[in-house]
């Protein structure tokens, strides 16, 4: 089976600006795939290229093996899109908007009516079926965007910031709905600024920046690549920066009685560090390990262009601290 999404050297230029700069990406069928990147990274351009709202400059883009321009009808039929912006038909009650959308995808009237009712119930808008979009609250509008994406029963659900600006409770409700769809076999492509959302929902995450792919990995792999912070409190301040000899240690800093190590796999480094410090005559009173988060990795790789394993973790160390390489 072809992947749900496959792009190769995808380029989109707006005059002198390259919104997509040779983006090659593959999203496996049935996966829950996250697309992360700072504002202007090219996430929305990428999505709009897939659904036909943006014309690519060069490269290829396919949805379930269908070229998004040559086989646009097949490609678009497979996609349900919940865009970031509220681009909803204001002339009709939301039930009819859903029926129209289903109709455009070839769903007959009677079935379209059933699907519209089901979709509204699923997102908790069953009681608002005859209301126009403009009269819905902000949270309801977000729910409706998801309902519209679902009503065509797509094989690929593309969600561009689906929980932007909604409260925690609604966000969790939407997560449940989306996860349920993915469990039933729908491939989900999610862009979000809530890193927790990607960490919690996604099987795999791509980080893009300046229209280019920086990295693709599972959230666990990405956090593994990040740098943990191990803080050791000594009984007495050391006269000099103590050496901790381990290849996983990226740097050592001292501030009074506190020794801070930056290291990959921080928890595993702790016993080595304690042993070496005590062998050097220091007494360790307390140890704390701050695990890197996906957010740290995200900040790191989008700042350094992908060198997450070698770079800093995005936190600023105390400027007063002394720091040496191990």
């Amino acid at each position, binding site marked *: 089976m072809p992947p749900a999404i496959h792009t190769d050297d995808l380029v989109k230029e707006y005059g002198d600006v390259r919104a997509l700069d040779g983006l090659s990406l593959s999203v496996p069928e049935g996966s829950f795939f996250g697309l992360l990147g700072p504002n202007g990274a090219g996430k929305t351009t990428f999505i709009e290229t897939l*659904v036909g*709202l943006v014309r690519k400059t060069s490269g290829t883009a396919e949805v379930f093996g269908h070229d998004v321009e040559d086989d646009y*009808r097949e490609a*678009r039929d497979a996609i349900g*899109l919940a865009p970031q912006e509220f681009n909803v*038909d204001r002339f009709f009650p939301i039930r009819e908007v859903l*029926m129209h959308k*289903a109709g*455009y995808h070839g769903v007959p009237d009677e079935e379209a009516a059933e699907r519209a009712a089901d979709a509204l119930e699923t997102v908790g808008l069953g009681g608002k079926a005859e209301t126009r979009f403009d009269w819905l609250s902000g949270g309801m509008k977000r729910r409706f965007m998801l309902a*519209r994406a679902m009503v065509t029963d797509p094989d690929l659900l593309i969600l561009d910031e689906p929980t932007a600006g909604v409260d925690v409770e609604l966000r969790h409700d939407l997560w449940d709905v989306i996860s349920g769809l993915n469990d039933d076999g729908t491939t989900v492509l999610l862009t979000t600024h809530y890193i927790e959302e990607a960490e919690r929902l996604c099987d795999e995450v791509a980080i893009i920046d300046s229209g280019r792919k920086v990295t693709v990995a599972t959230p666990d792999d990405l956090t593994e690549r990040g740098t943990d912070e191990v803080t050791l409190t000594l009984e007495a301040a050391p006269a000099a920066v103590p050496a901790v000899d381990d290849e996983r240690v990226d740097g050592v800093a001292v501030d009074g009685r506190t020794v801070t190590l930056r290291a990959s796999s921080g928890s595993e480094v702790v016993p080595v560090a304690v042993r070496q410090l005590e062998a050097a005559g220091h007494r360790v009173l307390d140890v704390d390990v701050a695990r890197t988060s996906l957010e740290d990795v995200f900040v790191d790789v989008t700042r350094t262009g992908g060198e997450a394993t070698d770079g800093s973790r995005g936190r600023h160390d105390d400027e007063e601290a002394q720091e040496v390489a191990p």
Partner: protein
Amino acid sequence: MSVSTGLKALTRREVLRFVRRPYNTFLPPFITNVLYFSVFGVILGERISEVGGVPYIQFILPGLAVLGAVSNAFENASFSIFHGRWNEYIDEALTSPLAYWEMVVAYVVSSALRGVLIGVLVAVIGALFTPVRSLANPLYAVAFLAVITTLFAGFGVIGGLAAEDWDHLTVLNQFILRPLVFFGGVFYSLDALTGVARTASYLNPMVYMVNGVRYGVIGVSDIDPDAALVVLTGLTAAVLAVDVWLFRRGYGLTD
């Protein structure tokens, strides 16, 4: 050839949009044409002798029907597309598996239908003011009305795609379409013109439309209706082809 469910859905959406807003779509032309027939037909018309062998009010009736029909066909297509672009909900259709030609057909058919309905409405209003109880050449009346509303719906699609602001739509309608209609022989016969004015009138496509419908309704025409029908049909086909090409290119729709 069966009509696809998607095409039917978009066409129905477009028809419902104007049918459910009669105060915006049907009432204004109703009032305007009651005024036209009252002032030009009754008050002024009584002081004007027959034109082309028929009373003046009967002479202007087909022209007013054409004016209403083409204006509404154009406005409907251009407004619907531009409003959809402005609020971006046209994306609902653009991101669907509808073929580009299906999208064009839906916008054109629904807009032409509105034009036909308004043309018929105007004719009915006119018939209340003057005794026109039957059509002189009904097939011509139907054919011309169908072709010209389709043509102007096709122009409306181009207008809706090309406009970048609401002002552009106003310019298209008020400064291009309306002068062409008024100098297209709605209120006068070409026999009233001489020299350059008469020759220039033959360059105005509205002349052929107005006279074609006039021939169908009252049997009077300044031009050959068969030739006019052939030319207008060809022009309509060309405009529709341009519409589909523009949709395929994404003109005004993508990027």
